């Protein structure tokens, strides 16, 4: 067994940490407060290579292993959940499906710009009436000559309605399978396609400087060449995408937990009550000890899932476990971290307040905690 990271992975951690501290940290609170997505910051993240980390150099990627990508997301999340969301969704949901399932001309057309961080891409799965139950999708695509005509709507789609959005991958129902269940197919839709509307969603509790969109399709006509993979591949594509995506949500939980824990540890050593630093009270110290332990567990589980993926071994069960454990561990860590900050932890001047809010999405997005438990229980044969 070898727990050592490669020199390269260590360098990624160091450099991304430095970048996050210098470029993201000073802006994070204000962007959150204004509920503002920052194209400038996103482009800067692109310049240092945070998009397309696992994509081959042929399409402008960095050709790194999956764990390197996860470490980068973790380090961004250590400072700000919203920017980490832009990176995690940009890579796992935006770039991933195009890279893994796109044909040569689709990859050549979109990936270089996306990998350079000059544009973003959304992945539209969730619908107003179909969240956990993706089988309830109502968005349809009907063939008309060489074209397909899409009708329906999507909700909560990350990176899909900002000035940098170059397109979305949208999952549609294209008929029914022999079993009687719906047949799914994904299509690429560019923003200026007639009948397509992407509307930013506001008044979010968390990820306030990440872009979230509602998508409306009213007789949107796309050419057949916009189909991603083959007709009927959509369900399989979604499962594969979510397996990888879960690792990046796990990385957000892990990084967020690490960030909140560090804030709490620092505060506990500085804040004095009853003539001593509050870290000297066992009730506070034990909270921090639990944080340190759970972060260690979270990291080991998530990195193991990445290792399995790098080795091309099955990793779906561990990805679900990693996503679930990291998210919930962060939930416990931010709860303790705010508690340790006392009243100050409830004020926006303290970053820990933002970490507390941002955590909640992790229990819900890319499969709720309940759905992760469902996935795990199926894997263990329940």
């Amino acid at each position: 067994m070898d727990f050592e990271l490669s020199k390269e992975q260590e360098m990624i951690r160091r450099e991304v940490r430095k970048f996050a501290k210098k470029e993201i940290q000073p802006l994070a609170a204000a962007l959150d407060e204004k509920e503002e997505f920052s194209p400038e910051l996103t482009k800067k993240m692109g310049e240092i290579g945070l998009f397309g980390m696992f994509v081959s150099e042929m399409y402008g990627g960095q050709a790194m292993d999956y764990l390197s990508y996860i470490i980068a997301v973790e380090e961004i999340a250590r400072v700000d959940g919203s920017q980490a969301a832009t990176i995690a969704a940009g890579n796992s949901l935006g770039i991933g499906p195009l890279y893994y399932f796109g044909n040569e001309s689709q990859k050549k057309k979109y990936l270089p710009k996306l990998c350079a961080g000059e544009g973003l891409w959304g992945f539209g799965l969730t619908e107003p009436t179909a969240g956990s139950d993706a089988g309830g999708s109502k968005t349809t695509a009907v063939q008309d000559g060489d074209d397909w005509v899409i009708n329906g709507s999507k909700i909560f789609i990350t990176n899909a309605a900002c000035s940098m959005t170059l397109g979305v991958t949208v999952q549609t129902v294209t008929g029914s399978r022999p079993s009687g269940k719906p047949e799914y197919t994904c299509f690429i839709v560019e923003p200026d396609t007639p009948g397509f509307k992407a509307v930013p969603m506001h008044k979010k509790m968390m990820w306030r400087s990440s872009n979230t969109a509602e998508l409306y399709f009213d007789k949107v006509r796309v050419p057949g060449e916009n189909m991603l993979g083959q007709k009927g591949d959509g369900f399989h594509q979604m499962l594969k995408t979510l397996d990888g995506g879960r690792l990046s949500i796990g990385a957000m939980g892990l990084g967020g937990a690490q960030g909140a824990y560090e804030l709490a540890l620092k505060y506990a050593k500085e804040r004095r009550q009853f003539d001593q630093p509050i870290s000297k009270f066992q009730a506070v110290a034990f909270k921090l000890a639990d944080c340190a332990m759970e972060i260690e567990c979270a990291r080991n589980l998530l990195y193991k899932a990445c290792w399995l993926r790098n080795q091309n071994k099955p990793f779906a069960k561990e990805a679900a476990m990693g996503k679930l454990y990291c998210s919930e561990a962060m939930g416990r860590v931010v709860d303790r971290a705010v508690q340790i900050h006392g009243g100050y932890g409830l004020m926006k001047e303290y970053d820990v307040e933002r970490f507390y809010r941002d955590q909640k999405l992790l229990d819900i997005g890319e499969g709720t905690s309940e759905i992760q438990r469902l996935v795990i229980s199926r894997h263990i044969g329940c």
Partner: protein
Amino acid sequence: MDTIVLIKQVPDTESAIEVDAQAARIVEDNLNWVLNPYDEIAVEEALRIKESLGGTVTLLCAGPKRSQDALRSGLAMGADQAILITDPDLDGCDTRGLAQVLAACIKTLEYGLILCGQRAVDDDLQLTGASVAHELDIPYISDVTHQEIEDQTLRCRQSTDRAHMKIKSPLPALIAVQRGLNEPRYISLPGMMKAKKKPIDTKTLSDLGLEPSALPQPNIRIESLKVPSSKRAGEMIPGESPEEQAANLATRLREMDLL
């Protein structure tokens, strides 16, 4: 123009330093090591010279084997190649010895300008640049916060606490760079991948034709080492209004003989 950048690997300024009192050394086991932040500025400046005037950037380091990670960082920033002089006999060297070793290697290279950091954030002796320039018998300019090269002439601004000086020098020369010269670029992930393919040439003292016994013996010895006591807690200056607070602050600073 070809440039050489002198590189040192130092403990990360964010790591907590422990001292082994008996050996009068710091405990190295759990330290994170990084490229000296001032050397980062030197690498950045060398890259800018390369971008405007062409040529190559060579990194040069004399130190333990782990130093190659610092060289990798410099290569990932964009330097072309690196040389690591590593030898058990380097351990006994002080700055003079080290300067002779570095100079012996530099004499085998083509260069128009040598850059180094004004200081290394570990021992902070600020001697290496001057010593190497002395060994090479070339001009040395410290505390450089601006430089321009035109027609084989180097024009620098030297900035110290007391003065800004404009200095002109022929080339080749050696400059020690100070904060303010530039803002070093981030290492990009593509840069990191490219750095994997760049060469680090490792040399021993005998590869450079040097006899360890011929190197100068250190004149000084560190007898003991202590971490300074940590910062004292801050002091809150009372006052209802900004004006009142400012007045109280001024009074307090006068009391402390700081104003």
